[in-house]
């Protein structure tokens, strides 16, 4: 046993004298380069940047409406959630341009006048397999919009929409932080985030298999 150890030492000593420095250097170069590639370049490559068709000022609109978010983002009579407003709702005020903002003018000319729906890019868009009930969260659980959507109502302009090339998901589902860490409840919208809150609040923990949330609560 001891002989082999000695031999190993000897061998590495030999190597050191040759090109040990180079080896360590290259190791560091490889290490750092791949870290940079993984942490900085990869996320940039993974997401494509898309601009919203119209820039929207939530603050401005919040001042004008009485009912807060629900003024435009409302429930239908059957309890389903209408989500982002359709042209129909906007036209109520914007039949003609109300102000002089070029974005509004664009909106009126390009969409209202031509009766085309605005192809908004939805930051919080969940994939097709998800069934999400706003009514359950807002009406029954009494949650605020902010809890999941963040303070978007306080924004004066729409941020760039980032779309994952591979999955087609919005960046907001994984979150801005590539390591998947989050600070606020609204930083990520992956399944684990839903599950975490459901476990915390003991929501429908009726799965026989996992003793946690049953799959059909949020999947369709």
């Amino acid at each position, binding site marked *: 046993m001891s002989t082999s150890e000695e031999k*190993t030492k000897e061998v590495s000593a030999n190597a050191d004298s040759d090109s040990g420095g180079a080896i360590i250097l290259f190791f560091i170069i490889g290490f750092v380069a791949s870290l940079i590639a993984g942490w900085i370049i990869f996320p940039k490559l993974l997401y494509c940047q898309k601009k919203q068709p119209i820039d929207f000022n939530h603050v401005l609109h919040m001042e004008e409406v009485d009912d807060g978010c629900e003024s435009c983002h409302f429930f239908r009579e059957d309890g389903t959630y209408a989500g982002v407003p359709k042209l129909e709702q906007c036209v109520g005020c914007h039949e003609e341009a109300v102000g002089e903002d070029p974005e509004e003018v664009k909106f009126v000319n390009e969409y209202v006048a031509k009766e085309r729906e605005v192809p908004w890019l939805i930051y919080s868009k969940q994939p097709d397999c998800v069934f999400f009930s706003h009514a359950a969260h807002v009406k029954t659980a009494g949650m605020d919009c902010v809890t999941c959507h963040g303070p978007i109502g306080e924004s004066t302009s729409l941020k760039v929409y980032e779309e994952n090339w591979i999955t087609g998901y919005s960046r907001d589902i994984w979150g801005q932080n590539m390591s998947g860490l989050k600070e606020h409840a609204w930083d990520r919208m992956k399944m684990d985030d839903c599950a975490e809150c459901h476990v915390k609040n003991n929501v429908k923990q009726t799965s026989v298999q*996992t003793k946690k949330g049953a799959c059909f609560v949020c999947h369709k």
Partner: protein
Amino acid sequence: MDSALIPKGVRRCPLGHFVLFLAVVGAVLLWGVFAMVLCWIKGLNQTNMNDYYGFALWIWADLAVIALGGGAFFTGFLRYIIGKDELKNIINYAVLIGFICYSSALLILAIDIGQPLRGWFIFWHANVHSMLTEVAFCLSCYFAVLTIEYIPLILENRQADKVPFFHNLSHNMHEIMAVFAATGAFLSFFHQGSLGGVTGVLFGRPFGFREGVFIWPWTFFLFTWSAAACGPCFTILVTKITEAVTKKKLVKDNVIELLAKISGWMLLTYFVAKTIDTWYWASVTAPSMGFFLSDFYTGNPLYGWWILVTEIVVCGLVPALILITERGRKNKTSLVVAVVLASIGVSLNRWVMVLQVMAVPVMSFDNWAMYFPSWQEIATTILPVAYGIILIGISHRYLPIFPQEKELNPVD
């Protein structure tokens, strides 16, 4: 040309012959790879599986190669844990065969699942109640162990061995091989068993279902047992084939005979256990679900009583009796007959436990479902065979797999 790579003191065929051999087997391999790519790109509609045959040829192949690869863990167990030192002369080959079998099993699984890119869900979203989860974990772990056991062999190649680091690594790994062998044996007992459990727990399938202890149905133990019994037989068989192909004696008879004897006794005890299991199942378990044994073996063109007799008597009792008698195992022909029968027997058992389970109608108004694999399934099942032959060929040529080769075949 490649003489620098060939171990010292042994004779190998000319490189040209070897390359030709590789090319022929490689063509078969490519055919299999083509079929595999078809299955990945176009989906499993390339197979003849259907909604009654969710498990078919591939799962059989998986179960069969793992059973046949059982020689690795059991020989390792005998060598390192029990201390049958003679077996060091065949352990390398047993490990290689095991490595081939297990890597093949993993490859086949990767083709068999409908969504290969989601394959990792079995680990990440594991359901601990599922036998398949147990299989996946143990299988991957044991494959890792086999890899670790195989690596030192590779490092013993003449050129690799020249690198001091590799030399030492290899040496050190040999030193601690007993630990890996023990781990491997432990893991193997489990996943061989859980493969048996895969069918045994299906309480909706009276043909496959077995009672058992705690969460483990009797098939759990029977599978481990049969793999331990028949795996070494397969190792012997492949050794004999290799000897025939290379026209050289590679392992001494006493080593083979020792392994054969142990296998024989394992097989005999397995035969007894399997018979008791079958009897209990036929007279208690199945009738409680409304089935006579004859319901499972009549009324269809393939699965008749012959299969039961072949599996248990012809391929179970007969080889066991041959192997436990000294004359039987000393006679070359009868030894080969016995190991062939044992290998067929365990494969047939796996076939029955997969394919016949699917074929037997359970609802009274349902029909027997018959199945014949598509060429894509056959090609992808032959693929691992070709891969195995190639790997054995290369390993044998360049690695000192058989420690006794030099002694048995002195070079002039």
